[in-house]
Every structure is written in structure tokens, then in C-alpha cells.
């Protein structure tokens, strides 16, 4: 094997040799590339050497003497990994900076080589003074790179960088010297920790050394200088700083932690946590791209510092977690900096220029999702393991800080992604893709996926279904140029194949959801045929969402469940943001989902305590804090269910989505929340939190959601928002059913969930067709469409009859079951409000159908054609199913009853054919339908006989007090349809909750604005920060702890 010292020798040799090359820049650049490639090869060879078997790191002696008399380098498994990372970043960074290197000439190349050299030695050296020297070299090199590649702002930033790192290195030198003065040796292995710590000066020296390493990693209050460099420097250099030098710094900190005792570990983790939370909080106020990336990278490094600080608690997991998060930071941050270099838009909003550019958005999406920790990237598994370990060690405060910090990170990253996908106030210009900048970014993106897969394997995540789905999504992404009907058939075919493949693998409650997700998916996908052209990017996202949904069902362990949950959120986020004006709604959707996901994650964490395995059945016997875990997870699932208080994302997200995405998101996606709650309630059962029964509180939440949802829906002017609010109402109803924990309660709620899927997709498809034809969502602009769109009218009519629960159709079944269930368990007041809400649903049902289909047809809509054929096909499939269920109610309710028997044995329904006999009453669906139809036909015949030749008249033949109606718009009563109702009960729907959430976000922004004012751009204040930070930490460490 080649001796690792050659990394140093090649770098130094080439650096000096460049001097003699004279004017031939191109040749010089070629040599630099080869040198970097060789260094990379050496570290790669050593990595393969240490990979499987050898564990003992080898020592490299310099100057012929053995330590402690000479400097020795060490190359073990850890060192080989880190040198490999540094060298890859160096090589790819050099390729990225090719033009700058050529332009700036040889000396920039030399400085670049010196930088990579410095980082390599920092990782390998075992000598303290040598470490100081090469840290100093590395910071000088970075400052050199900045000055050699000037633009207006980078020079002052470079200056601040130099004076700051100069001060920090001097502190390190002071510490090192005094360690020598007391310990007698400078070699890290020989500095025995016991002797030094208890000599008066020794502990100060150790403190100085460790603290300067921490300062080098830019801790929160004292990192103004770093942020200015990130903002000022060329993105290529920024990438190097954030990826390579931060990685080296973290390794050095981990290497030197052997000196510190317990207080040092605690201090490090606290500093790291504060940095992570603080910098992410300030991040939400940023609007400059590079500065934002600066904040984010400082935050990530803070997180890794915390993990290193927690070494005594995490034990052997630290390596896995630290590496996972470091790798995702390394890949994503370098990638985003390079992307920023390619797009070079300073303001976040200017990134709107690349909206619609598939490749850029794919790269950006990958890097952002890697950073935030979405599946399938390594940070997802890292964060999962971190949360599990923290929960196990009862570090709940630290867990909360980390989750809140990553939530803030999600805020500004998704807002930025939203701008890039959707901001249309900036005209579109796609920057020309330069090959040398493009290749490194793509490599890092591919690495992100590969490492994600590797870390998945490591953390024991083996879900064959998800891998198949991932392959199918990749396949669809590659074949995105195919026309729509091919891809649509492919998607439906895959779903159908999956359905038949494991029709019998699911039994019990999951089979109901299995039918809703798969059959529902197929039906709503049928509407996809209406779209022409290629509809780029739609089908991979749809498949991702459905993969996530079905993954929920297939999940055996909590990790698989959470993986699928996040996948579903990612897929649905991208689907929603495709809508025209859906940017801020998609943002609020993803933020609520991420918040909810973190609650579920912490809930799983708490539930895991004391367990080794990660099976879903772990929820059955939770040892510690079961009620808290239960409440956290319940709230988490309820964010997806949009219960009251957590609902403000739903109307915007569902209304602004595309015509066939709304039914998918509204009818199918919300059921994931129900599935979660079903699983939660079944496994953990009723819980008592601070003495109050959580389920009782949830029943009130469900009922109030139903009331609020239906009440809001009645006052909406926009048809799709009306349907969105009605979804909130019906799901509140279903939640109320679930909280009853009785056979009938669950039967009612599950039947409502199934019927809700059907009538909601029916209505959303119908209204989608209407909106597609009339190009407007506002109901008062439509009117009298019954003559042009009779089929849509019939489907909306049947939809509203089912929502309102009118007897002949199946909606009434849900209401009847609910009535009996309430009788059984005695929650009468909730029942009163629930039925009041049920009746209010009647208001918005009529408003929907009257303002759109009846009343006066408007001039513009006179010759509007019927909804596209393929929108009607799924509608009429659903209508036939609804009618069949109305005629034969037991075809659905009996099987569900059987499934529920093994969870709630007593209180089942007794079925005689179609007559259901419950504890309090009975109901014969078939007979009611038969009777009503017979009477209907009899009365119709009677009216037809006495009213045969009626004269057909047009719209203005009305008795208008002997006057002639002015215009159609003035004679169509649609705007503010329930004005008196609003006058009487309007106070109920005052936007209290939206104001609350606005106040929360404004408060966060205000705090961020106040804190970030400490970075006032003046170099000297940054120096004062560093010194202040040192003094305060010293005082706290000695006095405080």
C-alpha cells in the first residue's frame, strides 16, 4: 500500500513545481487535477484496506524518531474515511472552480493545493503543535482563495475571516504551549488526561485547546465572521469551506475530545444544541441565498457537535449518527453551494427564474430533502437513530431543541424550494449549464441516494415494497417524455397489479384502508386521461405518494411506518405545489406535515424506551410516559387530519391543487391520518394525561372540528374551498366516531371514512370538471349550468344527498350508526353538536349545487361543453358503487363489522338480510330505497299525467313584478348566500385560529430579527464576540456546572 505521507509529499511537491511552469496555465491545471486524483486514490486504497478486517490504525513516523520525540501521523479507518471525503471535495471543488483557477492563474492553484494539504494533515496528525500549524495553513489558504477571487463584498469578509481565525489559532497555540509546559509532551496519545486536568494551569490549557477547536467550528454567538465569508466568497469556495474544512474540524474535535472529562462533553453538546437552534432560528429571516446556506451549514455543524458531545450517552451509535448527518451535510451543502454558483441568484425570490427547469429542480429538491432529513437520504436514518437514542436516555429537552431546530430549518428551506418551483414574478431564464460545474453536483446528488440506500441497510430497513416502488418511480422519471395516456395506463396497471398480487395479505382494519388507497387511487387516476401532452413530473410524484400510502400499510416496524409517512408527505407536497397559486399553501401544508411528523417521531421515540426491537407492536406495552407519547402521536396524526387548530393548511392546499390532484389529496391522503389514529387507539387504548381522559378531549376536538368545518364551508365563495372545508368537517365527524372506542362507534366512523372517500372524490372530480370548463372557481360567477353539464349535475346531486345523509342513499347509514353509537356510550352534548354540524352540511350542499347548476345562466357560460369524458368515467363508477351500497348496505357494513369483532367483541349489529338491528333501533336500507323509489315513480307518473304538454320557457320568463329582468348577473342570487345566518352565527367562524398561527410565525420572525442584529458586520465586534464567548464558557464550565 502507498504510504499515506505521500498525500502530503505530492501536494507540497506539485505546489512548488507549479512555480517553474511559467505562463502555461492549462498544463498547470492538468497537473493539479492529477495530483488531487492521486491523493484521492491513496486515501481510497487505505479505506479499502481498513474496510472489513484490519482494525489497528498504522502510525507514520517523520524524521526517523518514534513519538513523543517526533511528529507522527496516523492512518486508521476513521482517518481514511475523512481524508477520502476531503480529497473528493478537493478534486470536485477544483473541477468546479476550473474557470476561476485559470483566470486567477497559478498562485490560486498553489493555494488550493495547500488548502487540501492542510485539511488532510489536520485529520492525520497526532501532534498538537503540528495540528495548530496546519489549521493555521488551512485558514490562510482559505483567506488566500477569497482574496485571489475578488468581488466587491468578499474582501472585507476575507479580512474579518483572517483576523478571527488568527485570534482563534493564537488561542490554540497558547493552549498547546501550556500543555507542553505542564504535560511535557505534545503528542496527543501521550498526553495523559488525568495528570493534566488536575494541575491548576493544565485544565486552563486543555480548555483553551478544546475551545479554540470549537471556535474553529463557528459556534452560534461567535460566528459572525464565518457567515460573512459564506456570503462574500465565491460559491465554489463556500462549498469547500462548508464541506471540507468543517468536516476536518469536526474530526479534530472528536480526536481531541479524549482530553476532556464529563463537563467538557456536556459543554460541547450544549454549545452545539444552541448553535443548531440559534442559527436555524435566524435562518428564517434570511433572504440572501449564500448567507442562508451559511446559517444552515453552521447549524448542521452545531448538530454534529451536539452528537459528539453526547458520546458518553450514545456509545457505539455516535459513529453511525454523526457520520449519517455529517455525510448528508457534506453532500447537500456542497451541492447547494454549487447550485447557487450555477444559478447565481442573490435573492431567494430570484430563484423563481429556474421554475420549470426539471434538472435544476431535481437537484435542488434532492439536496434540500437530504438536508431536512426526508427519506430515502442518510440524514433521515441519522435523525431517526438520534431521536431514538435521546429518548432512551431521557434527554427530552435536547430532543425538543433538536426537533424545533430542524423544524425552523424546514421553514426556510421549503420556503426557498417553493420560490424556486413557483415564484412567477421573476421572468424565466435558464442559466446555461457549464459542464465542469454540472458534473460535481450530479455526482454528489447520486452519492446522496447511494449513501441513503447504504445507511438504510445499516439501520436494518428492509422493505422490499419500497425498493420496488422506488424503482418504478425512477422508471417513470426517466420515461417522462412519454405521452400522458401511456404513463397513466402504466400507473393504473401497476396499481391494479399490486392490488391483485397481495389481495389477501391484508386482513383486519388495514384491508379497508388497502381498498381505499389502491382502488381509490385507480379510480382517481382514471381522471388523469383528460390531460393532454406530457404532464412532466406528475406521475413519479403520484406514485411516490401512493407508495408512501401503501408503505404505511406494509410497515412492520416504526421506522418503516415513519419512512412511508415522510415519503407520502414529500410526494403530496410536490403534487399540491403544481397548482397555479399554490405556493404559500403548499408551504403551510409541508410545515404542518413536518411539524406533525416530528411529533409522531418523538412519540415513537418515547414509546421505544426500554425496547430493543422496533416492531409496531412495541406500541402495545409502553413502559414510560405512555400518555405523553399517546398525546404527541395523536396530535401528530391530527395535523394530517386537519382537526380544529391544525386545519389552516387544508383549504388552500386542496383548493389550489390541480383538477385531478384535489380528489387524490382530499379523498385519499386524509385517510392516512385516520389510519394512524386507528393504529394508535387500537394499540395504546384509552390514556389518562394529568387525570383527564385524552379520548374525551379528542371527542370534543372531533365534534368542534365538524362544526367549524361545516360552518366555514357554508360561507365560502370558492367552490373548491367549500369542498375542502367540508372534508375537515366530515373527518372531524370520523374522529368523533373513533374516540368512542365502541363497536358501533368504530363501525360508524369507518363507514363514514369509506363513504367520504367516495363522495369527496366524486364531488371534487365533478367540480374540477366544472372549473376546467368555466375557468373560474367562484360560484357566483357560474350559474344555470344544468342545461350544459347535466352529467356533472347528477353526480353533484348524488354527492350532496350522500353528504347530507338523506335516507335513501348510503350517507344515512353513517348517521344512523352514529346515532346508535352515541346512545350506547352517553356523550350526549357532543352528539347534539355533531348532529347540528351534520345538518349544517345541508347548507353548503345546497349552496354548492344551486349557485353552480341552477339559477340564471350567465352570458359567458352559454355554450360551455360538458365536463371531459374521462372526468365523468370515474364519477359514474363511484355513483354506481354508492347506489349499490345504498341498496345493499350490509355488503359493506357486515364485513367491517366482522373485522371489528376481534377488537370490540360486544355491541355488534345483528343482520337479518338487509335489516340491521342495533341496540337502540333498526334500519333496513334496501326497503327504504325501494319504498322511496316506488313513491317517487307514482308521484312522477301522477304529475306527468296532469302536466303533459308544458311549454318550455327560457331564463327571463319569470314573474319579476311585471317588469323585465335587467341582466342575468343581476338576477342570480349567489353571492353571500347565507347572509342572515352569517349575521346570527358569524362570530363562530371569526378567523381566530389563523390569527393565532400568524401571530406565532410573526413572533418567530421578530425574535430572529432581533437576535441577528448582533452580527453588525464590524470585524472588531466579531473579535469581541470570540473573546466574550471564551470567557463566558470558561466561567460557566467551572462555576456553572
Amino acid at each position: 500500500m502507498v504510504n499515506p505521507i505521500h498525500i502530503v509529499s505530492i501536494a507540497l511537491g506539485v505546489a512548488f513545481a507549479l512555480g517553474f511552469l511559467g505562463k502555461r496555465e492549462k498544463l498547470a491545471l492538468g497537473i493539479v487535477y492529477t495530483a488531487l486524483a492521486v491523493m484521492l486514490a491513496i486515501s481510497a486504497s487505505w479505506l479499502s484496506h481498513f474496510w472489513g478486517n484490519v482494525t489497528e490504525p498504522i502510525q507514520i513516523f517523520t524524521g526517523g524518531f518514534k513519538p513523543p520525540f517526533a511528529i507522527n501521523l496516523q492512518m486508521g479507518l476513521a482517518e481514511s474515511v475523512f481524508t477520502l471525503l476531503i480529497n473528493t471535495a478537493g478534486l470536485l471543488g477544483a473541477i468546479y472552480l476550473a474557470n476561476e483557477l485559470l483566470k486567477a492563474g497559478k498562485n490560486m492553484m498553489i493555494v488550493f493545493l495547500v488548502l487540501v494539504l492542510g485539511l488532510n494533515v489536520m485529520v492525520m496528525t497526532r501532534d498538537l503543535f503540528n495540528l495548530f500549524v496546519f489549521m493555521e495553513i488551512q485558514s490562510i489558504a482559505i483567506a488566500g482563495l477569497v482574496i485571489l477571487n475578488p468581488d466587491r463584498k468578499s474582501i472585507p469578509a476575507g479580512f474579518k475571516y483572517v483576523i478571527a481565525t488568527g485570534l482563534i489559532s493564537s488561542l490554540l497555540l497558547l493552549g498547546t504551549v501550556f500543555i507542553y509546559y505542564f504535560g511535557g509532551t505534545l503528542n496527543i496519545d501521550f498526553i495523559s488526561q488525568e495528570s493534566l486536568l488536575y494541575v491548576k494551569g493544565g485544565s486552563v490549557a486543555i480548555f483553551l485547546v478544546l475551545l479554540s477547536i470549537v471556535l474553529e467550528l463557528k459556534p452560534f454567538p461567535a460566528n459572525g465572521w464565518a457567515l460573512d465569508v459564506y456570503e462574500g466568497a465565491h460559491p465554489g469556495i463556500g462549498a469547500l469551506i462548508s464541506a471540507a474544512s468543517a468536516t476536518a474540524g469536526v474530526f479534530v474535535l472528536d480526536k481531541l475530545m479524549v482530553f476532556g472529562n464529563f463537563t467538557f462533553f456536556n459543554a460541547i453538546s450544549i454549545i452545539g444544541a444552541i448553535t443548531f437552534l440559534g442559527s436555524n432560528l435566524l435562518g428564517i429571516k434570511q433572504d440572501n441565498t449564500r448567507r442562508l446556506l451559511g446559517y444552515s451549514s453552521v447549524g448542521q455543524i452545531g448538530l454534529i457537535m451536539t452528537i459528539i458531545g453526547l458520546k458518553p450517552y450514545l456509545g457505539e451509535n455516535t459513529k453511525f449518527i454523526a457520520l449519517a448527518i455529517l455525510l448528508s451535510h457534506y453532500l447537500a451543502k456542497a451541492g447547494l453551494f454549487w447550485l447557487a454558483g450555477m444559478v447565481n441568484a442573490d435573492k431567494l425570490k430570484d430563484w423563481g427564474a429556474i421554475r420549470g427547469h426539471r434538472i435544476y429542480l431535481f437537484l435542488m429538491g434532492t439536496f434540500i430533502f437530504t438536508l431536512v432529513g426526508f427519506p430515502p437520504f442518510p440524514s433521515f436514518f441519522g435523525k431517526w437513530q438520534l431521536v431514538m437514542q435521546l429518548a432512551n436516555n431521557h434527554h427530552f429537552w435536547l430532543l425538543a431543541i433538536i426537533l424545533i431546530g430542524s423544524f425552523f430549518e424546514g421553514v426556510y428551506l421549503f420556503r426557498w424550494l417553493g420560490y424556486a418551483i413557483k415564484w412567477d414574478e421573476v421572468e424565466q431564464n435558464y442559466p446555461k449549464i457549464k459542464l465542469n460545474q454540472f458534473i460535481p453536483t450530479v455526482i454528489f446528488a447520486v452519492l446522496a441516494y447511494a449513501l441513503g440506500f447504504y445507511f438504510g441497510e445499516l439501520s436494518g430497513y428492509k422493505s422490499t415494497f419500497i425498493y420496488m416502488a422506488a424503482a418504478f418511480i425512477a422508471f417513470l422519471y426517466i420515461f417522462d417524455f412519454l405521452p400522458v395516456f401511456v404513463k397513466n395506463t402504466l400507473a393504473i396497471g401497476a396499481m391494479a397489479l399490486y392490488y391483485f398480487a397481495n389481495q389477501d395479505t391484508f386482513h383486519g382494519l388495514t384491508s379497508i384502508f388497502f381498498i381505499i388507497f389502491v382502488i381509490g387511487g385507480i379510480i382517481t387516476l382514471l381522471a388523469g386521461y383528460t390531460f393532454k401532452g406530457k404532464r412532466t413530473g406528475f406521475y413519479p410524484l403520484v406514485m411516490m405518494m401512493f407508495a408512501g400510502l401503501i408503505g404505511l400499510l406494509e410497515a412492520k416496524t416504526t421506522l418503516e411506518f415513519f419512512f412511508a409517512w415522510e415519503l407520502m408527505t414529500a410526494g403530496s407536497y410536490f403534487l399540491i405545489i403544481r397548482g397555479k397559486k399554490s405556493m404559500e399553501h403548499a408551504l403551510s401544508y409541508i410545515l404542518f406535515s413536518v411539524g406533525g411528523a416530528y411529533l409522531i417521531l418523538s412519540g415513537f421515540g418515547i414509546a421505544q424506551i426500554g425496547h430493543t426491537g422496533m416492531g409496531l407492536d412495541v406500541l402495545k406495552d409502553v413502559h414510560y410516559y405512555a400518555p405523553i407519547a399517546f398525546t404527541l402521536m395523536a396530535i401528530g396524526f391530527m395535523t394530517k387530519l386537519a382537526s380544529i387548530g391544525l386545519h389552516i393548511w387544508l383549504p388552500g392546499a386542496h383548493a389550489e391543487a390541480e383538477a385531478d390532484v384535489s380528489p387524490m389529496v382530499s379523498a385519499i391522503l386524509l385517510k392516512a391520518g385516520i389510519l394512524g389514529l386507528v393504529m394508535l387507539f387500537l394499540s395504546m387504548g384509552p390514556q389518562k394525561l394529568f387525570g383527564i381522559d385524552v379520548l374525551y378531549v379528542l371527542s370534543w376536538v372531533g365534534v368542534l372540528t365538524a362544526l367549524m368545518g361545516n360552518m366555514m364551508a357554508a360561507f365560502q365563495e370558492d367552490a373548491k374551498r367549500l369542498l375542502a372545508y367540508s372534508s375537515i368537517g366530515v373527518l372531524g365527524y370520523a374522529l368523533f366516531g373513533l374516540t368512542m372506542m365502541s363497536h358501533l362507534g368504530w363501525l360508524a366512523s369507518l363507514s363514514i371514512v369509506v363513504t367520504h372517500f367516495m363522495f369527496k372524490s366524486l364531488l371534487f372530480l365533478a367540480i374540477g370538471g366544472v372549473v376546467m370548463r368555466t375557468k373560474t372557481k367562484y360560484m357566483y360567477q357560474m350559474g344555470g349550468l344544468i342545461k350544459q353539464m347535466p352529467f356533472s349535475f347528477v353526480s353533484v346531486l348524488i354527492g350532496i344527498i350522500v353528504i347530507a345523509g338523506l335516507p335513501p342513499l348510503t350517507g344515512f347509514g353513517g348517521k344512523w350508526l352514529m346515532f346508535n353509537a352515541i346512545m350506547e356510550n352517553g356523550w350526549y352534548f357532543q352528539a347534539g353538536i355533531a348532529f347540528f354540524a351534520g345538518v349544517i352540511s345541508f347548507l353548503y350542499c345546497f349552496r354548492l349545487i344551486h349557485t353552480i347548476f341552477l339559477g340564471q345562466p350567465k352570458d359567458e357560460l352559454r355554450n360551455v361543453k360538458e365536463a371531459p369524458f374521462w372526468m365523468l368515467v370515474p364519477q359514474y363508477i363511484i355513483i354506481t358503487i354508492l347506489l349499490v351500497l345504498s341498496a345493499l348496505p350490509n355488503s359493506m357494513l357486515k364485513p367491517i363489522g366482522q373485522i371489528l369483532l376481534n377488537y370490540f367483541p360486544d355491541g355488534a349489529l345483528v343482520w337479518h338480510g338487509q335489516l340491521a338491528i342495533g341496540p337502540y333501533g333498526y334500519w333496513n336500507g334496501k326497503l327504504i330505497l325501494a319504498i322511496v323509489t316506488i313513491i317517487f315513480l307514482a308521484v312522477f307518473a301522477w304529475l306527468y299525467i296532469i302536466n303533459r304538454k308544458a311549454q318550455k320557457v327560457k331564463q327571463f320568463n319569470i314573474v319579476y313584478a311585471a317588469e323585465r329582468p335587467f341582466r342575468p348577473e343581476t338576477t342570480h342570487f349567489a353571492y353571500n348566500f347565507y347572509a342572515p345566518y352569517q349575521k346570527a352565527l358569524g362570530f363562530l367562524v371569526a378567523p381566530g385560529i389563523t390569527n393565532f398561527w400568524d401571530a406565532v410565525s410573526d413572533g418567530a420572525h421578530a425574535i430572529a430579527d432581533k437576535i441577528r442584529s448582533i452580527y453588525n458586520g464590524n470585524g472588531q465586534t466579531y473579535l469581541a464576540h470570540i473573546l466574550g464567548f471564551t470567557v463566558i464558557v470558561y466561567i460557566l464550565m467551572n462555576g456553572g456546572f
Partner: protein
Amino acid sequence: MAQYLTLEFIAMLTGFILIIIGLWGMITQKNLIKLVIGFSLFDTGLNIVIVSMAYVKNSTAPIIDKAVDVSQAASKIADPVPQALVLTSIVIGLGVTALMLAYVLRMYREKKSLDINSYTDLRW
């Protein structure tokens, strides 16, 4: 009180005083060049401290030549390690100061002002 009067202690004391003066200069001086001077003062102070550590009573410089033979070197010379360290530290100090002055020159050419407060456009 007596044991503090040794030469070694006095040297280290002056070194620390220089360090504090340098620090004070860096923190308070608005003029960029004064700031760089402050930094170099800080650096020399540090070097003096390093050298003062190597003091051994009535020993000579650790250069092995005719005057000091290899055999009895261990007893007669001062502690060689800090001497070596100080050499590198001085060189690095030089390098950093040179880089700082290069920056100051480039910043002056940019904005024609030596006051540090005028270079605060990168902030928040």
C-alpha cells in the same frame, strides 16, 4: 514572593503583558493598520511566552556545535522543543500579518477608508 523573581517568570510576565496590549489594540483600534499592529504585538507576546518556557538555569542555546558537544548536550542546553516551536510560530505570525496587510491594502484601494466601521455592508 521570592520565587517569583526568577528570570523565567519575568519573561513570561512581559509576554503576557504584550499579549494583553495586543488584544486591547485589536479590540479597540478603529484604524485597520493599528489593528494589524495589535495582532502582531499579540503574536510576539505569545512567542516571548513560548521562549520563556524553555529557560533552564545557566544553560546555553541548544545549538550543537563546537562549543557544546553532543555528549554533554542534555545537561548544558535549554529545553530545545519550545525553541523549535517558536521558530514555526514566528513564521506563521509573519505569514498571517502579511496576508492581513494585503487585505488592508486591497480594502483601502476599494473604499479609500481605513476605518473598520465603513466595511459593514455584509451583515445580519
